[in-house]
């Protein structure tokens, strides 16, 4: 594939990203970068697990941890309870490790960096200075900044390419680095928390991830620290037939605050690609994590060919009293989405929130939702889910709210709205509610509606074309969730909503 779309070099991301997104036809991130890659052989076995561990220069305990997970995984079977239909995945027909060759030696300046890699960053809308840092150019940290203050960690196929603003974050005591670096540099933290929220044995995909994860991000916010800037990770799958298995671990120590953004893209390919990530959030007393995702993996083409199979385990553990977590997700991509970001509300008065927009168009299938596990007293949770189905797509909300016996005086509010565009798609709502004490309260509201012809005509009679009208009405439908996103992300998400629905009407 050589049809690389040329985009101008951009200085800032925000406004221009939005405009570019608006101006592009269908899937914006569908280019692929031809970069010489260093692959491990196809398939997974103990040797591959050892190889990944070795490539990351991991200590013995980490290799053992992975092997333990691998041995567990071979005894497990893939879960089939989700409302998803896809051909059998051949786990031996995937590459589990790919790394750009140019990363083997550190470049001295931008001139030494593979220009194709830089072009990739450009298209992702990453500012130049951050491109230099991500490309590993020495001294790039001292170059002048360009306005936007978001620290970025980029993961290209399996490897973290670098993290920006590291020094400045370090001054605040914040650790933000790739997980492979954290395993080497901060083993005490990693050993303490890795697998403590999503255990190795948690589920088929999480266990596979535990064995073969190649990189991901690590964040530690020390007690009482409010992270001075938003942190973000950009994931991109580039190499063909490559699975991406990243692992993210974020720890907010007592009274710490952090807002974390995650973006994902992948090239257009005829074949499907596997993505099985694990995200673990640990939130101690009075700490707060806000985790936002805009997932825009390649959804497959309009005939349902290709696309990412996205099997993700995300879980937050509010370990301390008054700990707070907020998941916000905008899921527009992937052929298959299997994802249930969850909250364990262990601490008394802890709070969990889940705001979700899931859009499925053409032949996409999404089975997504959340779990709110109330263990502590006076815990609160709130779920707002907006599912949009168009084309032949199937969109399922699956959620669990459980109130344990000692979670007295706890509350949950769930609002689950589905919007249908056209008459060949489906929306499904599968709520599970378990209440084991008499003082807690659970509320569940669900609606399903079709995009209203009167609304569309009203918009069009005012001059908007049909797609603009649908995007406006759908953005209105999603408003509560869009408002929960950080500002720049909200703009990009709005534009994405419009793009994801292209061709859904008429």
């Amino acid at each position: 594939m050589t049809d690389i779309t040329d985009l101008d070099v951009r200085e800032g991301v925000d406004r221009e990203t939005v405009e570019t997104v608006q101006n592009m036809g269908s899937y914006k991130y569908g280019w692929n970068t031809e970069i010489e890659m260093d692959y491990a052989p196809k398939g997974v076995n103990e040797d591959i697990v050892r190889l990944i561990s070795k490539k990351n220069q991991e200590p013995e305990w980490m290799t053992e941890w992975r092997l333990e997970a691998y041995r567990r995984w071979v005894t497990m079977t893939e879960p089939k309870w989700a409302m998803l239909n896809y051909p059998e995945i051949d786990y031996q027909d995937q590459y589990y490790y790919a790394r750009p060759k140019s990363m083997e030696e550190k470049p001295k300046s931008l001139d030494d960096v593979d220009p194709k890699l830089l072009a990739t960053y450009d298209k992702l809308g990453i500012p130049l200075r951050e491109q230099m840092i991500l490309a590993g150019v020495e001294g790039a940290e001292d170059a002048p900044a360009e306005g936007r203050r978001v620290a970025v960690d980029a993961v290209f196929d399996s490897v973290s390419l670098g993290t920006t603003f590291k020094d400045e974050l370090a001054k605040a005591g914040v650790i933000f680095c790739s997980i492979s670096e954290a395993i080497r540099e901060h083993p005490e933290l990693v050993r303490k928390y890795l697998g403590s929220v999503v255990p190795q044995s948690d589920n088929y995909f999480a266990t596979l991830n535990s064995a073969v994860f190649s990189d991901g991000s690590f964040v530690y916010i020390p007690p009482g620290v409010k992270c001075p800037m938003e942190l973000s990770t950009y994931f991109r799958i580039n190499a063909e037939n490559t699975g991406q298995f990243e692992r993210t671990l974020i720890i907010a120590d007592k009274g710490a605050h952090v807002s974390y953004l995650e973006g994902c893209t992948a090239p257009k390919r005829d074949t499907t690609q596997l993505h099985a990530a694990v995200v673990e959030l640990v939130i101690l007393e009075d700490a707060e994590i806000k985790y936002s995702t805009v997932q825009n993996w390649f959804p497959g083409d309009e005939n349902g060919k290709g696309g990412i199979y996205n099997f993700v385990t995300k879980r937050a553990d509010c370990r301390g009293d008054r700990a707070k977590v907020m998941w916000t997700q905008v899921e527009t991509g992937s052929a298959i989405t299997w994802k249930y970001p969850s909250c364990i509300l262990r601490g008394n008065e802890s709070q969990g929130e889940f705001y979700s927009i899931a859009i499925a168009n053409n032949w996409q299938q999404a089975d997504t939702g959340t779990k709110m596990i109330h263990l502590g007293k006076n815990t609160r949770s709130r779920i707002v889910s907006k599912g949009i189905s168009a084309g032949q797509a199937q969109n399922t909300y699956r959620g669990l709210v459980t109130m344990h016996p000692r979670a007295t005086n706890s509350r949950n509010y769930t609002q689950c709205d589905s919007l249908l565009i056209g008459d060949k798609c489906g929306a499904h709502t599968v709520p599970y509610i378990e209440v084991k004490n008499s003082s807690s309260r659970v509320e569940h509201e669900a609606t399903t509606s079709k995009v209203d012809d009167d609304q569309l005509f009203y918009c069009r009679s005012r001059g908007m074309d049909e797609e603009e009208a649908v995007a406006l009405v759908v953005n209105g439908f999603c408003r509560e969730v869009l408002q929960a996103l950080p500002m720049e992300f909200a703009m990009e998400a709005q534009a994405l909503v419009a793009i994801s629905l292209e061709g859904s009407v008429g």
Partner: protein
Amino acid sequence: MLKINNLHVKLEDEDKQILKGLTLEVPAGEVHAIMGPNGSGKSTLSYVLSGRDGYEVTDGSATLDGESLLDMEPEERAAAGLFLAFQYPVEIPGVGNMTFLRTAVNAQRKARGEAELTAGEFLKVVRAKAAELQISPDMLKRPVNVGFSGGEKKRNEILQMAMLEPRMCIMDETDSGLDVDAMRLVSEGVNALRSEGRSFLVITHYQRLLNHIKPDVVHIMSNGRIIKSGGPELALEVEENGYGDLLAEAG
């Protein structure tokens, strides 16, 4: 400006003819009123002109400054300068009134090859026009028509009209559901927009709106056709005697 000739329209889903050879011309700068009993096809006329689905034109034509409206998409008609003030303005949850207006204004500007208004430019204009119609800043922020009173909805339609600056305004029973004060506000809004280059087609059941918005010509519509046209006195006649005599006269 607007020329409708021998227009025949039936419902798409059933074999029911609604407009049966309607002919009407509204020259530039004039205000024409259409009155008529229930079921005479007045609202259908407004929908067909603005391009709503569900109708089939079986014969005749409708042009705006010589351009055929019937071949255009609704948004193209809007960009060409046609505006319909809805009898029942539609609610759009979650979409701020201001966002809606700005999207509409810029969509039309884009379609005409004009530069889009920046947020600042737009804000200045909309605030001034909203104030004239006594539309509060709060109403501009609320979702489009959601929770608006009848009067607020109609004032909001006039605000859209003022912002979009159409050449041909069709008002479908804008007076329905308005109290006296709201009717005055709406009428003042419309009168402020009257100009040489702008025409109005005012559809109404009642003469009282025409006390506020003085028409140049009044048409009586019945059974899908215009059966009589005349000056403002025709509306008074209807008010006094009902439609009975006129219908009988038309046979």
